[in-house]
């Protein structure tokens, strides 16, 4: 069939076709947006033109100190996420390696996973007031239980033969965990962290929209009060861009830290 070249069933597409396709879908998106706003099909107040949104973004950063809001948001995500990892990585690995430890913590952790983190916002505000603490706590709660479960599952999946090999080489329990199980699962831990960091951004915005005077989310809520839709959309774009940048950073970290996973 002649269509097979670009449209084969389960045939991988070439690099060029992928780039053109990816660029194309965004071109269509912005094309529709530009057309709709310039042709007056949409209310300019509710849907500002993309060029206006980008101009506003520029203005926010260089004229109105938006960068400090962005830095606050980043530090909240990174701070809370680091705390969550500091607990989840050792605990998840130990739970995956020792069924006795899993038996203690798994019933607790899996129950918490079904409690939506935002439902804690009212009580967190009462406990911690309106400072940084409730935001960090929300992110921490939102991320840690999933992270523990993911890391535990990955740890369980470390092949039994690796553990048995280490045992027959004379390793004790702690050596097996530190020198075999942990390095074996580490690439998957980094992948799990990458996935959960995306979730942390979600909770950050929730925290900042509900109860904050600083940060990207707070800026967006302020903008809403003054009907500045362009600023709201700027906020969305910046959050998206930051998410993407952090995801790329994790991808780079993965590549850099685990060269042995690359073939050839």
């Amino acid at each position, binding site marked *: 069939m002649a269509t097979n070249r670009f449209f084969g069933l389960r045939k991988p597409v070439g690099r060029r076709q992928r780039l053109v396709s990816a660029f194309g879908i965004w071109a269509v998106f912005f094309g529709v947006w530009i057309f709709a706003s310039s042709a007056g099909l949409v209310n300019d107040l509710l849907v500002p033109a993309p060029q206006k949104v980008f101009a506003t973004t520029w203005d926010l950063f260089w004229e109105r100190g938006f960068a400090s809001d962005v830095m606050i948001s980043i530090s909240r995500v990174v701070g809370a996420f680091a705390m969550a990892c500091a607990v989840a990585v050792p605990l998840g690995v130990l739970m995956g390696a020792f069924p006795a430890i899993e038996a203690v913590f798994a019933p607790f952790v899996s129950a918490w996973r079904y409690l939506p983190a935002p439902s804690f916002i009212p009580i967190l505000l009462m406990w911690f007031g309106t400072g940084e603490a409730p935001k960090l706590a929300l992110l921490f709660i939102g991320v840690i239980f999933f992270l523990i479960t993911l890391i535990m599952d990955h740890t369980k999946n470390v*092949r039994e*033969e690796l553990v*048995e090999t280490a045992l*027959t*080489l*004379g390793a004790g329990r702690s050596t097996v965990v530190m020198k075999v199980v942990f*390095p074996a699962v*580490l690439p998957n831990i980094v992948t799990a962290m990458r996935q959960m960091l995306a979730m942390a951004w979600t909770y950050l915005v929730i925290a900042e929209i509900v109860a904050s005077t600083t940060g990207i989310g707070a800026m967006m809520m302020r903008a809403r009060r003054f009907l500045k839709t362009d600023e709201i959309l700027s906020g969305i774009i910046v959050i998206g861009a930051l998410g993407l940048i952090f995801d790329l950073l994790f991808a780079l970290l993965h590549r850099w830290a*685990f060269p*042995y996973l690359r073939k050839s």
Partner: protein
Amino acid sequence: MTGQSTLQIRNVSKRFDLGRGRSVQAVQDISFDVEQNSICVLLGPSGCGKSTVLRMMAGLETPTEGEIVIGGRTVDGPGRDRGMVFQAYTSFDWLSVRKNVEFGMKINGLPASERKDRTAHFIDLVGLTKFADAYPSQLSGGMRQRVAIARTLANGPEVLLMDEPFGALDAETRWLMQELMINVAEQTSTTMVIVTHDLEEAIFLADKIVFLSSHPGRLKEEIVPQFKNGKRIADKEKVVKLDGYSDLEAHLMRLMRQEGRENE
């Protein structure tokens, strides 16, 4: 061969608990000796418990009855005196070939200079000197098994236990590896116990074949390949051409087939 036994298997039985009061008898009342510096091959159809016997020697399983004695001590859990090579690849992917081979010596606290010498020696013995700094993911299956063999031998075990070590390799690689094992046995004077279901492999490698029958695993026959006159010949083609080779092969085939019939 000195005729002195390194490893004694004394009336060993193994029953696996399947839960809900059900259990399966994997091994029933097996006794045999493994002479020092000999190659003992455990042969038998699938389900004969040969791997279970080997795992009990390694200390990875505990006999339900009977005991396994190595150098006068009863086996009680895994230890560095019994190195094990598995059918599945067990290279530690995050370590180079050199670091893999060094692993056992390092966790057992050998001084660095001795480690270095032994590592180089055993990497050379298995013919991987050119690949000492490669990661396992860059190696072929046969080379990965060489890494596992070098790593186990470098740790200086009294007995090398191998569970279908070449089962995952293609025919010509398997052949090369079998010849390698003869050379290794000659050069290191290591006692070896090798599990296989490959008749050719058994005849070529064995100083003694222990044939197990299945369901439950029992000792059927101990066979010394007399036609080799107590010599090890590292050229498989020569062994195949010797008088007596085909008789032994036919005999083992008969044993295998009997088992097959009884299990239908």
